[in-house]
């Protein structure tokens, strides 16, 4: 298993999630800022792509039903969990 590649993809997710979080907090106090709304939507789109790419390669990022559907085999236990990398 290529842990270096997995880590790189996980960091991409974390970085874009942080951008979305920051813009989320900004928009809480500036709900009409169109530039921020546009950038937030771009960040969400990128984050979705990064998450899908990661999960396609290494399995679910989240469990308890938050991470979406699973294949026939229970995937959550198949690879190192994100915090074990």
């Amino acid at each position, binding site marked *: 298993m290529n842990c270096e590649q997995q880590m790189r993809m996980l960091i991409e997710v*974390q970085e874009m999630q942080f951008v979305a979080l*920051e813009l989320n907090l900004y928009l809480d106090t500036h709900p009409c800022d169109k530039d921020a709304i546009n950038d937030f939507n771009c960040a969400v789109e990128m984050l979705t792509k990064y998450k899908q790419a990661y999960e396609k390669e290494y399995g679910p990022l989240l469990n308890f039903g938050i991470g979406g559907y699973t294949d026939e085999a229970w995937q959550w236990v198949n690879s190192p969990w994100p915090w074990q990398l």
Partner: protein
Amino acid sequence: MKKGPYKTKKQMCMPDDDCPDMKLAHSYVLWQHYDNAFRPQEALMKGTLFPELYGVYTLPK
């Protein structure tokens, strides 16, 4: 010797009648403008997306 009346701990810490003309404090924060942003990698490392919020306070050595 006459004793008391004693002040309670709350009265000693909060002398609400010693300065009757004092006003409550007002706090404010500067209005933030979204003009620039760090790149995602830089933002995560610095702990903020917004350059104007970074390095406002110097870290103690």
